[in-house]
């Protein structure tokens, strides 16, 4: 299946640990270097300094080079620094799929992917799904079949659905359900979403 693993395998994820540093919830010093960075102090009286790393990646076809901190997630960078707010922060810990974007064409949870690892990669967000004014079939089908309500989870569902259809344009209902099971829709519009994905598949097969 195309969707990323929903749950972290074991214990505290590296990212959760790093994020925890910010609020002082530090366990054992298994990452002494990062801990050391935490105590470096402040620059210009504002923000704590971390070792930053210069990374270059493409987002929706456009190249970006920027210095990222080791604790910044791809979602942080997309939303806060590139103003691409299509991917949503919902659970912020890999439980709901609201932040799903493509990394080299494969869906990932942007909240669980550290930005420094995106160096040299190709990222696609919901803002890059349409080709200019021409909507992706999945976007058209979500509108036609009302595959949303409040729309907050929709960008994630679109990215997961479009990735599924890239692999298989005629998925069975069961395959659709499996593929979407890593995305939560609290308004509960799953039935309409299944219809939308199936319809998008038909559109792709026709084109």
């Amino acid at each position: 299946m195309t969707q990323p693993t929903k749950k972290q395998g074991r214990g505290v994820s590296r990212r959760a640990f790093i994020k925890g540093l910010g609020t002082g919830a530090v366990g054992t010093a298994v990452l002494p270097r990062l801990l050391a960075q935490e105590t470096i102090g402040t620059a210009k009286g504002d923000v704590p300094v971390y070792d930053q790393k210069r990374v270059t990646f493409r987002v929706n076809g456009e190249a970006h080079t920027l210095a990222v901190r080791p604790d910044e997630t791809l979602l942080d960078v997309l939303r806060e620094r590139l103003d691409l707010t299509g991917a949503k922060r919902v659970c912020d810990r890999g439980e709901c799929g609201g932040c799903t974007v493509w990394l080299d064409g494969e869906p990932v949870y942007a909240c669980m992917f550290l930005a420094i690892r995106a160096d040299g990669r190709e990222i696609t967000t919901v803002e890059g799904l349409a080709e200019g004014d021409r909507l992706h079939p999945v976007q058209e089908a979500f509108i036609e079949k009302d595959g949303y309500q409040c729309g907050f989870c929709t960008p994630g569902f679109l990215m997961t659905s479009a990735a599924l259809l890239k692999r298989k344009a005629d998925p069975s209902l069961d395959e659709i359900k499996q593929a979407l099971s890593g995305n939560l829709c609290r308004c509960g519009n799953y039935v309409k979403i299944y219809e939308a994905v199936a319809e998008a598949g038909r559109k792709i097969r026709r084109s």
Partner: protein
Amino acid sequence: MARKTFVDIGDSSRLYQDEARGTGDQAGAQTPVAAVPAAGARPAYRLIGKRTARVDGRKIVTGRAEYTQDIKLKGMLSGKILRSPHAAAEVVSVDLAAARALPGVLAVLNLTDGRVRYAGQQVAAVAAVNEKTADRALALIKVEYKPLPFVVDWEKAKETGAPQVQSDRPNVQAINDYKRGDIEQGLAEAEVVLERTYRTGSEIHNTTETHGSIATWEGEQLTVYDSTQAVHSVRDGLARALKMPAANVTVIKKYMGGGFGSKLGVNEHTIVAALLSRETERPVKILLSRRDNALCVGNRPITQQTIKAGAKKDGTLTALSLVNYTCGGVGSGDRTSEPLIDIYKCPNVKVDEWTVFMNTGASRPTRAPGHTQGAFALEGFMDEFASALGMDPLELRKKNYSTRNRGDTGLPYSSKGLDKCYEQGANAIGWERRNKIPGAGSGRFRRGIGVATSIWFGAGVPGTLADLVLYPDGSVEAVCGTQDIGCGTRTHMAVVAAETLGLEPRDITVKLGNSDYPYAPSSGGSLTTPSVAPAVRDAGLKAMERLKQLAARKLEAKPEDIIAENKTFRVRTAPDKTIAYADVFRDLRRETVFHGERSGMPNDKFAFNTFGAHFAEVEVDTETGRIRVLKYVAAHDSGQIINVQTAESQVIGAITQGISTALFEERVMDETTGNPVNPNLRDYKIATSLDIPETTAIFVEVSDPYINNLGTKGLGEPPRIPSSAAVANAVYNAVGVHVKEIPMTPPRVLRALEEKEAGR
């Protein structure tokens, strides 16, 4: 325990239900009742009642719909709130010095009144240049607490000697009683009497977008971008809290990621954002965390409902009684009695409801507050009673069918299509396939079919206003201070305006989600469509009248002879005399505003309610206790549907939530720490795509000339009310024992099966 005098304890479900009934709203008090047209068949519409794709669909699917979370203002600061880890404590001291001294911190506030009553209660707040700095500042605030005894188990809170939650009253408070006829006599007349107790857990709304607000000041003028269901009520709440004129406050909601009741009214953090912004003279954004969402912005109250009823052997109800103990933490529980008082014909009814306080965050209305839990108990009871009487559960319901409210003792319903819902729903699910005797099947996997009934208010609020602005260039704007919380209100407004003016939905520019726009009620209580659509309709009819006058003058005809068709006006008597819309609009000369208002209702003559019947088919694994829902049918009488496309989504979503509550959802409290153990989306289980079956939504044809000018009723809540009950009743039909408690987790199912086995 104090009786009879019901103290004001912020009974959210009562206020909510009053508003939902259309009786709690002052704006509508002076609204005249419109002349009642003769009852008859529904009018034939071109757009209303058909399928229209959302007018803002493109914005949503391209990721350009702007949610509060997405809004960034120049110079905006990050606000964060420090919350108590203790469920009960005295706050001895709060030392803000270190936080204030941290570079990048621009404001620090002490928010405590010295006493903490639940974990998650706000204690202090900071505003800083970014989130990380704000987080660091929170960690530097030194709070000395003196922890106090607390209670987070409602049954223990009810006991004598439990820690008292509120300083001024005991933990158990009467919130409602109701009586009609003579319950003892009704039980004495009965040939069959049954008593059962049902329990429902505490649900967390868990909206995808957590609560959040951005506040910014320009002199004395405060503007707040809020993730809210109620721009007008947040404006009023802010003005009250900040002791400033409501006229100086504007609340804007563009897009919002789910509410379900948890985003009604002003939030504490919204006030904090305004205070921090005033102090720093910069915009301040506060977004709550997922954990905050589970602790301090609402939950559905717990209930324990005991129903005792009597009936003749033919199923005629003679007595119905309910005792409800409900708990909404430091807030009020929900009154669950309304369905029991109303749905079934019964002369003798008695209700006693009590709320219990405990040290958890206050409840908030949760999609159909009270009715959802009430329907779970009442409808479960009806199925168990049907078995005791040897009757088909659907026949028992039909046997006690009412046409007047208060169980056939009150006012006639303005319209009631529940009989059609039963009939069409039963056909669609294949009701005859059910086990004639619950649990009659054999083998490990058992299948069953269940039914449950819905009743809700949903008449809308008289006095709701909407404007249509017609421009000489032919463009049209529909403006209303309502909000689209995902139900498709933008599209409904466009559909009604376009229908009335002879245009297409895409021709209408819709403006909503701003408290500066004409008054509309909160988007809760299933109020929005039956409030807003009639107001838009009213404005449209007025605009059309004006356009026809202009056309008549040009065509030298009488206005009553003018017909609008295909963006052309023509004269009925002279088919060749026509004039294009564009030419008539040009004659308006300037933009012209037509004010629409939702009229009053003849409340003294009719009861206004929505109805529905749900049917679920399930399979129960009797070895693991796991339940799978296989098929679902929902039939609704919500009067005239405005847009079938979005109405279906409302129903489907409510079914998903009902299945989710029936099977998975429950906040679990840790009695040692006083904190929830599942304040996230991994441990708090909600339904996923794998859990939701094939679903059919049916809207029955009902005409209601009394309710409003479109005969439309609410739909937000009605499908949420019976959806957990229908699943539970299907499980009962499958295995022959009612689980009586939601969520029906595998251990609870297995326990019920064991009890059945043991003959208990």
